[in-house]
């Protein structure tokens, strides 16, 4: 029982991080209908900047990291979205793949095989929670994920900007005629995704990764199924999708001795298998709305 509780808590911590990553995809997708494949390199870049400056101050480095990824995201929005306005969304999506390759190549020359510490304040300390000995990093990941997700939803639900964001993602023309600047909201969506990238990147570099290395750039791809499972148009779906993937992954990994009949590396493909299953049954994701097309 204790083992199961441990797996569930660890899974929730990992799932919270997947949720934040998925939220980065969803926010941009809702605002611009672009699937940003460069999100992974934003995560890596943000975490790398924090690692580079953290010898001075972790919190100062975190602020710089957020600033860098927000500026990068705004530049990407300006170059890709604004200059490609009116063109096929698929073209812009493919351009984000190109941006991802450029950023990862640049990161490879900088990071190479290094494992950079973020010097976070919680380090590898352990805490006892409900009789379970847990690495503090996992609890911090869980706590930060909850705080960020709840803050985002309060902003979305109760602020004039959140209201405008919801309106613009539902009926762009009607929103514009209410005086809502669609360009401003598009930039805001990218900026939010940029900030989320650094926060999730730093947390991932403490759990499950031991520091910042190149693998961090591919983690966002692992979170993409979370966004798809939850529904690419649903912010709450992103968080719930993240939790499903995170808890599922940890459980499959933890109980793999009972799942050998599924193959040795099943935990690695579990997420994508689950995504395929959800897409087969509910193509719009668990919380996405079915698109109605007039015949």
């Amino acid at each position, binding site marked *: 029982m204790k083992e199961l509780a441990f797996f569930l808590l660890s899974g929730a911590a990992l799932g919270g991080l997947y949720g934040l990553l998925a939220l980065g995809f969803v926010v941009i997708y809702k605002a611009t209908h672009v699937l940003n494949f460069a999100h992974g390199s934003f995560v890596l870049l943000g975490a790398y900047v924090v690692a580079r400056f953290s010898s001075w101050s972790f919190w100062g480095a975190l602020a710089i990291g957020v600033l860098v990824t927000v500026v990068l995201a705004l530049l990407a929005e300006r170059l890709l979205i604004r200059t490609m306005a009116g063109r096929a969304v698929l073209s812009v999506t493919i351009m984000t793949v190109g941006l991802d390759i450029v950023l990862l190549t640049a990161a490879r020359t900088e990071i190479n095989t290094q494992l950079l510490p973020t010097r976070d304040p919680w380090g590898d300390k352990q805490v006892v929670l409900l009789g379970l000995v847990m690495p503090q990093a996992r609890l911090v990941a869980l706590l930060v994920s909850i705080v960020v997700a709840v803050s985002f939803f309060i*902003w979305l639900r109760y*602020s*004039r900007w959140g*209201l*405008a964001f*919801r309106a613009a993602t539902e*009926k762009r023309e009607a929103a*514009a*005629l*209410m005086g809502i600047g669609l360009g401003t909201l598009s930039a805001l969506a990218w900026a939010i995704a940029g900030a989320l990238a650094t926060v999730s990147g730093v947390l991932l570099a403490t759990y499950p990764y031991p520091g910042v290395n190149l693998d961090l750039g591919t983690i966002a791809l692992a979170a993409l199924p979370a966004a798809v499972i939850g529904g690419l148009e649903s912010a709450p779906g992103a968080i719930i999708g993240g939790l499903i993937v995170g808890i599922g992954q940890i459980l499959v990994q933890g109980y793999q001795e009972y799942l050998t009949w599924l193959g040795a590396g099943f935990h690695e493909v579990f997420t994508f298998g689950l995504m395929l299953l959800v897409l087969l049954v509910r193509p719009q994701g668990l919380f996405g709305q079915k698109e109605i097309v007039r015949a």
Partner: protein
Amino acid sequence: MSTPDLAVADLTVRFGGVTALDHVSFDVMPGRIHAVIGPNGAGKSTVFNTISNLVPLDEGSVHLAGVRIDGRSAHESAAAGVGRTFQNLGLFSDMTVEENLLLGTYLRGRAGWLACALRLPSATLEARRMRAEVSDVAATVGISDLLKQTQTSLSYGDRKRVELARALCMRPTVLLLDEPVAGMNPLESATMTGTIRSINEALGLTTLLVEHDMNMVMSLADTVTVLNFGRMIADGPPDVVRKDPAVVEAYLGAPSDTDSSTKEHA
């Protein structure tokens, strides 16, 4: 002579080889209700869409209270003072009526996104003030009891009233009403007509409306512009326009038809 609140001059719009609007001109004076009528495909909605800057002009100009607004983006038109409703409802489905109305106050809000995210006192205070405004407008339009409902739970007539209230929340210089009573039953239609009249009288709000219900148009409008195939065939007071032979031939039909019909033909 005072400046018109809305001055449309030589409005010309072409979609490929089709001329949707051909040098259409009219003025709407402050506090007046001006109707644009015509058969389907006459270009009425295109007039609205060009004033709102959803459709670009090929020729001509649009001035709002003396300021040229054509060539701007849709949200800049709204900021300049154009408030409108939609022929096919433009309400947001996953929002409550109150939230839909709050969107109408969006332009007057000053709280930045960060202040909103951090729920700073300035942002909270502003939100409270906007809610009070929304509540006042809802009372004016008679939808106070609907504020907490989502628009999907409302009747068609109520949704139209919510749209009107949302446009009023924008405090526009000119209110554009796109078929405000279309799809309503006679009772709802009469209520809506009364509401528009009382708002116009109380606020002196300059209004441009497109409508097929001739009884409503003739009883409500101070001036009527008639379009046919994108061209203006008449412009003037309702009593004069309804007797214009060109209008009778193109749109209204025999006089006896116009007297009795409540809904115009397709």
